[in-house]
């Protein structure tokens, strides 16, 4: 029976699942909205795999994204890795001589600087979500343009309106103001794309040496307007991998494959976990002033994990604990 490897990226906005075969081809991928219910969505994804691919033999599993710990616990993954490393791994697989990765996702944006195939520097947006997917989503909705059409609309403009891109809230007021003045929609959208790129390069890319080849990945890479704005500002071509929207999941599945090969087994619990009932319980611990919110995950009748406590009392109470570092 053929071996397959699964990579799962549980992000704030989307949960992506990919299945690789032995030759690193992507045989299946799924882009699901997380909608604040990571466990349900994960189960739905596994259910889809069974329905569409049958009970395939998965020999290695990796998780990444902000929900990686939770997903890792539920799946029993071989690798739990942060998304920066995963994006670098998949981009290097896409283009071995890559020097810069621009990644813009739902809630965060990052820049990863690679030299000679090694991550030498990276940065993420700090306390501001301006210029990320969620903001674009919201503006598209407000302007009544489907998000899929957003980029194409921008490309039709040749006279951008200047939008203040420093802060998402102010950018929105600025946009509304420009709308009221009567500017047409494609000019505003194209202006917004430029503002986002300006904001990204000034905040996330500040002080970084951006050399080509440049890869652009993450959900926002679907937006041709942003791509064009990057190319005009950086004065060079920006490459978008075929699977730009699931690159984190691809990266972690490659890592999972390597790890499973190394230890010659997998800790994956099997696809049938989509039938198991998971319950998440919040407990507020009142033993000290910290009032930690403990999260307890139950797998049918058993307690799978507890975390969220500062002192380790709850975490340590379970035997065979998973390191949540």
């Amino acid at each position: 029976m053929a071996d397959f490897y699964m990579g799962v990226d549980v992000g704030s906005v989307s949960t992506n699942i990919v299945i690789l075969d032995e030759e690193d081809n992507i045989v299946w991928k799924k882009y699901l909205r997380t909608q604040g219910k990571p466990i349900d969505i994960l189960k739905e994804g596994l259910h889809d795999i069974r329905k569409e691919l049958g009970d395939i033999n998965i020999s290695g599993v990796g998780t990444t994204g902000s929900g990686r710990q939770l997903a890792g616990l539920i799946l029993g993954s071989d690798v739990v890795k942060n998304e920066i490393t995963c994006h670098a791994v998949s981009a290097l697989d896409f283009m071995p001589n890559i020097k810069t990765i621009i990644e813009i996702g739902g809630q965060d944006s990052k820049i990863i600087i690679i030299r000679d195939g090694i991550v030498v520097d990276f940065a993420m947006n700090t306390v501001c979500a301006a210029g990320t997917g969620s903001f674009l989503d919201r503006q598209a909705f407000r302007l009544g343009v489907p998000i899929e059409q957003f980029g194409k609309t921008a490309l039709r403009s040749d006279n951008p309106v200047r939008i203040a891109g420093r802060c998402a809230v102010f950018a929105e007021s600025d946009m509304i103001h420009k709308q009221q003045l009567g500017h047409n929609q494609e000019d505003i959208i194209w202006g917004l794309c430029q503002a986002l790129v300006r904001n990204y390069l000034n905040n996330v890319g500040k002080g970084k040496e951006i050399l080509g080849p440049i890869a652009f990945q993450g959900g926002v890479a679907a937006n041709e307007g942003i791509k064009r704005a990057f190319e005009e500002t950086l004065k060079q071509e920006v490459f978008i991998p075929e699977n730009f929207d699931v690159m984190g999941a691809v990266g972690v599945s490659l890592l999972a494959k390597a790890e499973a090969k190394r230890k010659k087994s997998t800790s994956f619990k099997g696809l049938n976990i989509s039938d198991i009932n998971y319950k998440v319980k919040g407990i507020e611990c009142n033993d000290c002033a910290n009032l930690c919110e403990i999260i307890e995950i139950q797998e049918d009748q058993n307690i799978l994990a507890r975390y969220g406590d500062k002192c380790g009392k709850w975490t340590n109470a379970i035997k065979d604990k998973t390191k949540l570092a």
Partner: protein
Amino acid sequence: MKITFPHLGNVYIAGKAFLEELGQEVIPPPRCSKRTLELGTKYSPETMCLPFKINIGNYIESIEKGADTILITGSCGPCRFGYYSVLEQSILDDLGYEVEFIVFDPIYEGVRELKNNISRALNVKSYRKLIKAGDLGWKLIKKSDYLTQLANEKRAYAFNSYLVDEIMEDYYKKVEITVGGEPMLKLMDQVEDSLKAVKIDKNKNPIKVGIIGEIYTIIEPSVNLEIERKLGHMGVLVEKSLTPTKWVEHHVSNFPFGSKEENEKYKLAKPYIPTLVGGHGRETVGSAIYYAKKGFDGVIQLLPLNCMPEIVAKSILPTVQNDYNIPIMTLIVDEMTGEAGYMTRLEAFVDLLERKREEKQNGRFLHGC
């Protein structure tokens, strides 16, 4: 007079015992918690830096426990801290709390006033007693910093790093019920013994990271989301550029010349930042170079959102990173308590450092062939 003071890492342990030796009643604030932050943000100006908000929270929680006098140090550098005491007093006044503030301003702001404040706060009956208590206080500061650092080292080397957490948690609980200097020292000795008994893997060669940046954020674990512990569990050996011990050495023990380490940092920072920019901006740049020269794998700068001196330092650090070939990451902390993004950055940074070290070793190996 029931004295309290704002939290700054483990300083309360020494501060409490020191004041108790002098016969004062001390009510240290409860350990910083979510409630502290909530109270602080509710009553502080919105754009104020995070340490101020924690201070306010600490005061209110201490006052609830009966404190009526607040001790705090002053400053006159170009950083908001110089204005903390004045603003804090006025906020507590507005809230209707009747508390007295005793501010220890630097000596060049007036010797007499400092002396007055000291004798008022410390209940000085004889200077012999003060010196004796001071001696003990100094011993306690050094010892508690030593324990913190020992815990950091043990975490990096231990087979089970969570054991260290258990010991430290137990220690902090016992501190709250221990009264006086000698019993405190005894407790610390016990903790030292249990920490030393933690089994370690001597073959490990952990990644070494220096923590630099704004003093409060470096020292107070509740503000920096326990960065030492998090890195420790990843098997990273952490050293902090500023500790209460280093502060006292620089500002008190070696007054007016300053400590050797800090003076060296000034010298190292000089080509980049020749003058004072307030707070510890200059020291931050100096510390980054200091750790690079000591052969550390990487450096992490910590600052509370909109901290002015650290913003100056932050803009210089990329140049230091290039000149000394040491990765430097900046983490900004604010009221957020969600840790996912924070963990991602730390993990990715440690990954980067590990790869870099591997490459260095492999490179050398290849060269050897």
